[in-house]
C-alpha cells in the first residue's frame, strides 16, 4: 500500500490516498480510527476464543448484537446501562489529569449513593416539588461522594499518604459500613424492613428522575445529566484557570509549585470533584434506575471506570462513546449467553482486548498500516508513575 514492497502505486491509488489523508486530517480521524480498528481486532480475538470452545462465533456475535441493539428497547437499555459508567469514568479521568490515581471510585459511588438515598427518603424531600427535590438529591449524592473522595485527597496533600493505598482502603471501609447500614435489622439504620433483600426504602416520588423509555434498565434523565457533567468538566479542564492548574499539577507538581499554584489545594479539590462525579453517577442509579439504594449495584463499577477513562485517554468528551461501548456490551451479553451458550465473560475478554489494542496502538497501526501516532498522543499526564 505504501509502495514499500517495490510495487509502484497507480495514479488512482495516489489520488485516493491523498483524498483519504485529507479526510483524516480535517476530521482528525486518527483518534477515532485506532479505537475502531482496536475493536475489530478485539472481536476477532474473542471470536477465535469462542470457536476454540466449539461454538460458532458468528452466531455468538449475532446474539450479542441483538442483545445490544436488537430493538428500540434494547438500544435504550444499552444506553441506560452506560450512564453510571460515564460518571465513574469521569471521576477517574479528572483525578488522572491531576496526576492522582483514584482507585476509590467504588467507595465514592457507595458513599454518594447511600447519601442520595438517605436524603431522598426525608419527609422534606417528599414535600418538595420535583424541580427542587431532584437537585437536592443530586447535591446530596455529590456531597457524599465528594466527601469520600476528599478524605484521601486531604491525606495525600497533608500527610503524603499515597492515594492508591488510602482509596483502596476506603473502598473496603465504605463497603463494610454501608453494607451494615443497609443490612442491619437491629438497630434499623436505613434498611427497608418490608423488603427481603437488603436495600433502603424507596426515595420520594418527587426526587425520582423522569423516565424517557421504559426499557430494561430504564432510560432516564440521568443520561442528560451525565452528558452535561462531561461537557462541564471538559470546559473546566480545558478552558479555565483552575483546569490549567489541575493539568499543571498533574504534569509536574514541582513546576506548578514554582508557578505559585497551591498544589495541596489542587490535589484536595481534584479528589473532591472526582468523588463528586462518582457520587453523581451513583445518584443517577439510585434516583433514576432503582428508586432505592442497594450496594450490589455498584460492584466493579469503579474498576470499569478506570478502564473506560483510560480508553478515552482521560478526555471527558471521549468518555461518552467509550462508556456507551462498555455499557452496551455488558447489556447485550446475557442474551448471547442464553441463545448461543457462550459465557458472559467473553465480553470482559473483548473489553480487555480493546483496551490492550488501544493502548498498544503500535500493533493496530502495524496490522492496518496506519501512520504512526503523533508524539504525545498516548498517555499524557496519566502516564507518569505513582503520581510523584
Amino acid at each position, binding site marked *: 500500500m505504501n509502495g514499500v514492497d517495490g510495487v509502484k502505486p497507480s495514479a488512482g491509488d495516489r489520488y485516493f490516498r491523498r483524498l483519504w489523508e485529507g479526510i483524516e486530517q480535517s476530521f482528525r480521524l486518527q483518534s477515532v480510527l485506532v479505537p475502531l480498528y482496536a475493536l475489530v481486532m478485539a472481536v476477532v480475538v474473542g471470536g477465535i476464543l469462542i470457536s476454540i470452545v466449539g461454538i460458532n462465533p458468528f452466531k455468538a456475535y449475532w446474539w450479542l448484537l441483538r442483545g445490544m441493539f436488537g430493538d428500540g428497547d434494547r438500544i435504550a437499555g444499552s444506553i441506560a446501562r452506560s450512564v453510571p459508567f460515564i460518571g465513574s469514568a469521569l471521576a477517574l479521568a479528572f483525578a488522572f489529569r491531576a496526576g492522582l490515581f483514584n482507585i476509590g471510585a467504588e467507595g465514592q459511588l457507595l458513599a454518594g449513593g447511600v447519601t442520595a438515598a438517605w436524603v431522598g427518603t426525608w419527609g422534606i424531600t417528599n414535600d418538595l416539588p420535583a424541580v427542587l427535590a431532584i437537585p437536592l438529591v443530586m447535591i446530596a449524592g455529590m456531597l457524599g461522594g465528594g466527601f469520600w473522595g476528599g478524605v484521601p485527597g486531604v491525606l495525600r496533600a497533608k500527610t503524603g499518604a*499515597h492515594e492508591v493505598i488510602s482509596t*483502596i482502603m476506603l473502598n473496603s471501609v465504605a463497603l463494610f459500613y454501608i453494607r451494615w447500614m443497609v443490612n442491619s435489622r437491629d438497630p434499623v439504620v436505613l434498611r427497608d424492613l418490608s423488603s427481603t433483600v437488603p436495600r433502603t426504602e424507596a426515595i420520594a416520588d418527587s426526587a425520582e428522575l423522569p423516565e424517557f423509555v421504559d426499557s430494561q434498565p430504564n432510560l432516564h434523565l440521568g443520561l442528560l445529566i451525565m452528558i452535561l457533567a462531561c461537557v462541564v468538566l471538559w470546559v473546566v479542564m480545558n478552558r479555565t484557570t483552575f483546569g490549567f492548574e489541575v493539568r499543571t499539577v498533574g504534569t509536574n507538581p*514541582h513546576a506548578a509549585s514554582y508557578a505559585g499554584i497551591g498544589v495541596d489545594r489542587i490535589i484536595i479539590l481534584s479528589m473532591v470533584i472526582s468523588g463528586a462525579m462518582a457520587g453523581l453517577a451513583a445518584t443517577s442509579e439510585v434516583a433514576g434506575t432503582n428508586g432505592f439504594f442497594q450496594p450490589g449495584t455498584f460492584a466493579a463499577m469503579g474498576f470499569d471506570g478506570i478502564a473506560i477513562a483510560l480508553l478515552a485517554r482521560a478526555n471527558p468528551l471521549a468518555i461518552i462513546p467509550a462508556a456507551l461501548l462498555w455499557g452496551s456490551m455488558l447489556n447485550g451479553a446475557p442474551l448471547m449467553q442464553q441463545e448461543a451458550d457462550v459465557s458472559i465473560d467473553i465480553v470482559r475478554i473483548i473489553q*480487555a482486548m480493546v483496551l490492550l489494542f488501544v*493502548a498498544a496502538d503500535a500493533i493496530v497501526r502495524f496490522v492496518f498500516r496506519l501512520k504512526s501516532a503523533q508524539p504525545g498522543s498516548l498517555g499524557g499526564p496519566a502516564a507518569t508513575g505513582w503520581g510523584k
Partner: protein
Amino acid sequence: MADLTLPPPPLDEATATRSFSLNRGQGTGIFLGVLGLLAIVGIAPNITGDTRAFWFEAPPDPVKISFDPPTLVIAIGVIYLLVGAASVFLQDRLGPWITRLQVFAAALFIPLILATALGRSGSPGTNVINLLDEALVLATPYALGSMTGLWSERSGIINIGIEGMMLAAAGVGYMTYAVTGSAQGGGWLWFSILIAILVGGALALLLAVLAIEFQVNQIVAGVVINIFALGLTGFLRSQVIVESGASSGQSTKEFGLPLLSDIPLFGKEFFTGRPLYFCMYLVVFLTWLVMFRTAWGLRVRACGENPHAAETLGINVITTRYLSVLVGGFIAGLAGAWFSMEQTAKFEDNMTSGAGFIALAAMIFGKWTPWGAFGGALLFGFSRALQSRLQFLDVDVNGFSIPSEFWQSLPFLVTIVVVAGALGRSIPPASEGQAYRPSK
C-alpha cells in the same frame, strides 16, 4: 546571566509540613496521646474487671498470662500518653528513639484491642499463638503479591496487574487440576501448581511486552491484565471447570517441618503448614538476598532508578527489566495457586477479590523493600485474622452486639492511619513508569 538561576525547588517534605505547625512525629504523638486518653477514660471503666487471659496453647489447661482487663488497658493508655508527650516535647532530645517508641506503642495496639474485646465478651481468654499463626497464613497471598510488585517496580515497571496475574494463575491452575487430576490430589496437583506459576509468568510477559516493547502506559497495561484475567477465568470456569464436574477437591496437605515444629509453645503452630505457605518465607528471603546482596539485584535496582546510567555501565536494561517482571509473574502465579489449590481446592469468579491491590498497598507501605513489604503483608494478614477472632468473641456494648462489619473495616482504617501518620511519603524507584528507549 547568573541572576537567571532559579531558587531550588521546594522539597515535598517542606510543602507537606509548612501548613502544619507540628511535624509528623509530633502529629503522631498527639494521635497517640488522644488514643491513650480514650483508653483510660473511655474504655477502662466500661469493661469487666473479671480476670481474662491470653492463652499460648489450645485449651484445656494452656500456658497463659492472666490479667485484669481494665488494669491492662489503663497501663497501655498511660504508655500511650507518655510516648505521645515525649514525641511532642522531647523530640530534639530523644532523636531516633522517638520512632522506636512510636513503633512499640503501635505494637501495643494489639493487646489493647484484644483486652478491650475480651473485657466486653463472655469468653475467659483467647489463644494468641493460634491468632498469630492464622495471621501468617492469611498473609501468604499478600506477601507473595507484594514480592511480585517489588520485582517489577524495582526494575522500573509499575505493576498494578498483580491482581490479574494471581487470578488468572488461580483459575487456569485449578482448571488444569480439575481436567487432568479431577482435583483429587497426587502428582497432578503439583503439575497444576507449576501451570499456575507459568500462567503468572505468561501474564507478566504480556505486561513486559506492552510496557517495554510497545511502551504502553504501564498503568493501562496493568488494567488490561486485570480485566483480561477476570474475563478469561470467568469464561474458563463456566465453559471448562463446571463442565469437568470437578468443582472442588483435594488441596495441598499440611505437614510439619522436622525439628522446628517440635519447639514448645509456638513451634507446632508456626512450623506446621502447607507447602505454599512455607514458600512465602523462602520467596521473601530470596527476594531480599538477590535484590540486595547480589550483583544482579543491584542491576535490577539500577534499571529502576536510572536506566540510562545503568546502560552506560554496560547493563542491558531491556533484558534486565524483562527478567525481573517475569520473576515477579512467577511469584504471582504461586500466590494464585495458594488461592485455588491451597486455601481451598476450588475456583470461584474473582476469588482473589482485591488481594492484588492489598499486596500493592503492602509494597508501598514497605517502601519498596522486601522486609518492609513483608511487614505490610503481615499487618493485613493479622488484621484479617484479628477480625474473625473478634467476631468470634462476640463483643457487645450495652446489649448492642458490635456488628461484624465494624471489625472487618478495622484493618483498613488502621492502614490508613499508619500510612498517613507514621510512614508518610513513600518514595518509589525514580524512573518507574517511564518508557525507556535505549540510546544508540
